[in-house]
């Protein structure tokens, strides 16, 4: 049933994929993100973030407090590159 359980709605990553990666030793959010793109879609990890951290905690026996959350970087939503370039030109 894990293959029908969606963890990352933006990139359609399933619980099965997450559990397989954790069992292969990918036990940080950022590693899982780089492989699956979980957390890189429009919601920037707001659906999958805690679900993946909880999976890592359960598999490793660690507390949630000891699991590193994903690195947050700007922008929080999509911005057209043209707009960024335009604002850059305004500064010149």
């Amino acid at each position, binding site marked *: *049933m*894990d293959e*029908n*359980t*969606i*963890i990352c*709605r933006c990139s359609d990553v399933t*619980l099965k994929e997450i559990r397989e990666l954790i069992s292969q030793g990918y036990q940080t959010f950022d590693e899982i993100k780089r492989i699956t793109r979980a957390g890189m879609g429009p919601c*920037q990890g*707001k*659906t999958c973030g*805690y*679900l993946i951290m909880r999976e890592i905690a359960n598999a490793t026996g660690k507390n*949630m*407090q000891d*699991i590193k*959350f994903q690195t*947050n*970087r*700007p*922008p*929080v*939503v999509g*911005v*057209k590159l043209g*707009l*960024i370039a*335009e*604002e850059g030109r305004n*500064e010149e």
Partner: protein
Amino acid sequence: MKQAEIVVIGGGPAGLCAAMSAAKSGAGVLIIDRNKSLGGQLVKQTHMFFGSEKQYASTRGIDIPEILLKELAKYKDKVEIKTNSTAVGFYEDGVITVLEKEDKYYKVEPKAVVVATGAYEKFLSFPNNDLPGIYGAGAVQTLMNVHGVKPGNRVLMVGAGNIGLIVSYQLMQAGVKVAAILDAAPKIGGYLVHASKIRRMGVPILTSHTVKEAIGKDFLEKAVVCKVDEKFNPIPGTEITFDVDVMCISVGLTPLNELLAMRGCRMKYVPQLSGLVPVRDENYETTVENIFVAGDASGVEEASAAMVEGYLAGLCAAAKIGYKPDDFYERRKDYMNQLNNLRSGPAARHILAGLDQIRR
């Protein structure tokens, strides 16, 4: 680059009160909010608030923004409001980038910032959790109370906290049948006054139950739930199937504060505050100077506390950049007392335990 004295990110209860408080002290304030109108989540709260009179108890949530905005209008020469505007970045040099209506992008350089960005809904993992008909409780409230759209005909509510209980009642008011409310915890999380109201209307509240799976081809048709043991493991043979076309996930909120994390504020995972929160002092200043936080972004609580935190953070942010009114200590003490009173009940014990972990 746009200059601003104080930028308040988020125009919900915390942000509006922060802006008001800072402007009252004489600071110029820029409010940035991604929605088309201010008020945050208050705009969908059709129920009357609890708490004390100072935070508008017995007033319906939807009526509070108007009261706050009227109050804010007194300082209109000090306050600039940018709606439909998302703060998309918060950089190490203190610059904030703003995206307005997807077609305008600019930088703001503030002297101080109050981040009052609120919270977002947690999600659950179970088979077929991506079927249409499965909503967050906030989405259901937006559909019904903001847009007047019925989400479906028969609902299974997942989560017996206050939001789950209140939204269940609102669904029934809208003529939608609520099949049952379940919660994985052995006890109802929300206020008993809400739960009793629901029970009197004949809706079962199943504690120690969780969702086993959702069933449906193109949309949700059935939901299977089962009992869990004290370690939250499903107990085989306890399955119950409900014919529902809506499942409403109301398993709690978590602070929305990625802007603080990317700015470099020290963050900590505190379960009692529902997730990752910034470490801050008693003035709500984070570990980065002149960056303040207020409301659910600093730990999930409720709107009354968010408003008082906003007043306090706005007052202290203004004072930090030179707008320290004569009655500063008096006002600060008043807000701190109000917060202590709001957190004096047994329901707030976990909040106090959480706050102990983030005080710097």
